[in-house]
């Protein structure tokens, strides 16, 4: 999809310069058009994204509390030291990592699996594909909220359903309330919601593999498993990796769904870093501290994404 063609697109853009010069006399020059087209987006992003980012970085070196009238005091890297030596914050990062890893793993497994099955094009597959897409179209906040009703051991259906199949009493366990199960519960709900996204992108990848490649493989008498491993997987991989990239970033900063589902509890066992951040920023109004935490989070994601995109580009080139 997009990534498979970026490099090629730019290369061809270069080769395409010659005819452009021939029509420069007519209408706006290509250079002007290029800037006219790109500039509004860049300006908007600068205003809404970069400016606040720089402001946040500046704030992170102060002890500002946005609800008090006192002006910001420069305190150097105190906020950063506070955060990096706070074992509760490290615990939150661990919880977040656990969440991101498992939800991505499950989304990839189930999403790719579904895409492969749907690609068999059984009767009615497009209808059922649309049905599977529905969870993705909801608001994460609303999802987190109504799953609290579904998970309620006494009045919600989930425990009763599990009890029906396993014989356990519905009130003998609680998904959201137990220290052991709560971290898996947030993985479950997030996966339920976003697997369709991964499925969709993998489906696009599968559809893009031309038949003639399989033909050639058949001629070479490659087994279906061999075909899968050496043709399907490598060609779906760039799409899969793109889906994983967007989903990983999103899970790392996920706030609404988990906050409404568990409020970070029980205790702090599902307190993702984003929840800590929201509490620091908008409940305790420790603006400077919160900004420092945000910068740390951003740098982490930025660094990881950087490495990942490089790996992605390498895969594209194959």
């Amino acid at each position, binding site marked *: 999809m997009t990534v498979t063609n970026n490099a090629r697109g730019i290369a061809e853009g270069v080769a395409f310069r010659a005819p452009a010069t021939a029509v420069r006399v007519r209408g706006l020059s290509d250079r002007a058009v290029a800037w006219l087209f790109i500039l509004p987006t860049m300006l908007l992003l600068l205003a809404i994204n970069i400016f606040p980012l720089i402001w946040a970085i500046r704030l992170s070196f102060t002890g500002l509390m946005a609800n008090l009238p006192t002006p910001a005091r420069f305190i150097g890297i105190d906020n950063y030291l506070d955060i990096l030596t706070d074992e509760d914050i490290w615990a939150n990062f661990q919880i977040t990592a656990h969440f991101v890893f498992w939800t991505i793993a499950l989304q990839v497994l189930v999403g790719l699996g579904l895409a492969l099955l749907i690609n068999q094009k059984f009767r009615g597959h497009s209808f059922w594909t649309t049905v599977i897409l529905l969870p993705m179209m909801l608001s994460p906040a609303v999802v987190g909220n109504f799953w609290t009703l579904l998970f309620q051991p006494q009045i919600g259906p989930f425990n009763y359903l599990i009890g029906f199949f396993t014989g356990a009493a519905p009130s003998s366990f609680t998904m959201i309330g137990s220290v052991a199960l709560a971290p898996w519960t947030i993985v479950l709900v997030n996966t339920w919601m976003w697997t369709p996204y991964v499925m969709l992108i993998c489906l696009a990848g599968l559809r893009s593999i031309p038949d003639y490649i399989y033909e050639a493989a058949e001629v070479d008498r490659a087994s279906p498993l061999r075909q899968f491993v050496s043709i399907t997987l490598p060609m779906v991989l760039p799409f899969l990796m793109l889906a994983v990239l967007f989903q990983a970033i999103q899970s790392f900063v996920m706030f609404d769904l988990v906050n409404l589902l*568990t409020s970070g509890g029980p*205790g702090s*066992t599902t307190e993702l870093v984003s929840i800590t951040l929201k509490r620091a920023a908008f409940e305790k109004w420790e603006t400077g501290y919160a900004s420092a935490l945000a910068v740390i989070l951003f740098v982490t994601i930025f660094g990881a994404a950087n490495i990942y995109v490089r790996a992605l580009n390498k895969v594209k080139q194959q």
Partner: protein
Amino acid sequence: MRMNKTNLLLTCAAGTLALTLGAASSAQAEGKSLTMCWAAWDPANALVELDKDFTAKTGIEMKHEFVPWTSYADHFINLLNSRSSECDLIIGDSQWIGGAAENKWYVKLNDFFDKNNISMDTFLPATVVGYAEWPKNTPNYWGLPAMADAVGWTYRKDWFAKPELRAEFKAKYNRELEPPKTWDELIEVAKFFTGKEIDGKKVYGAYVFSERGSEGITMGVTNAMYNYGFDYMDPKKPYQMEGIVNSAGAAKGMDVYKELFTCCQPPGLTNAYMQEGLDAFKSGQVAMQMNWYAFFPGLAKDPNVGGDKIGFFKNPAGPAGDFTQLGGQGLSVVAASKNVDDALTYVKWFAQPEVQQKWTDLGGASASKAVLDSDAYKKSAAYAPSFVESMGMVKDFWAEPLYVPLLLDMQNRVHDYVVANKGTSKQALDSLVKDWIKVFKQEGKDPS
């Protein structure tokens, strides 16, 4: 047509923009009006009814903005902080008084009260301290006590009356099955009911607050902790907390609450506050429920569990005290309002004895002595006697300007221990003292 796709897009965008701008400009209302801000709950509905009288008398229209409890504090503190004039009058939480006074969010009412002969002596002293004064115990008034509230308990009178249960309880504990007067008794009764089958369903002994996000579990645990020796600071040394907050009694109080939560709370209620308690009680899951008195009028009228089936008792005492957690709010005038004079007119009207009486009749809870001390009131409803008694034994959480971090820290430590089984109660309280010292340092009050 595809050829005009860009044109179409542009037109749509322009149209949307126009629609937005057009829709954004609001029509100016004719005549005078005041906006009253509060939390969205049953008493708020009663206020809507009550305010019709004000409109009839003065011609000023009353608009109401009610926000759900879960975002009540965030929303309105945000509003007040940014000096918005969206609210003219606000019924703000008792905890906001410190911030409101020091940041001048509210109009100071001393002069107004003096000029209009509104005396704070007509209200229960605890409500004056809790909802109006800052600094505490000084005659500086920032609000008029509006909604008196405290934590109380309901119980299934019909279950307590069942002969077989009464016999069983008597045999086991050698005393009658009655509403508990101490926390020890409370735990005994709760354990007695937990697991029994009543009306074909398994029931549980008690419901207590366990909410993590805003203030729930703190508003619950203090009812135990106050009565075992917890206090916020040394009364002789302001902000001195070491040894007081984390005293042995305080830790025991937390243990007692945890014991009740672990043995007798219905499953799944690990992040539950007011609504879940009402649901659990109304659907017949629990024998006793902790909740705010504000809900008791509604419960008394409930078709399933009201009337003869429901009883009420005040928060049980402990070895070191007999307190209950204060709730309730005061009526204040927002300093940034554009209609301060009209707002003050409302306050004057609201303070009248007839209005206070009607307020309670409609479903609010007046803090006026005249209303609460009257015999008529005590006979008017089953919860009235214990309510009056409770209002005489209330204790409140910090009302400092920085109360939010203080509250959130306690939420964190308490929930970690009571619900998530992390560490011991002493450890939780030791960490809490450290948290609170940090917060006070930010406020410039060094508690050492």
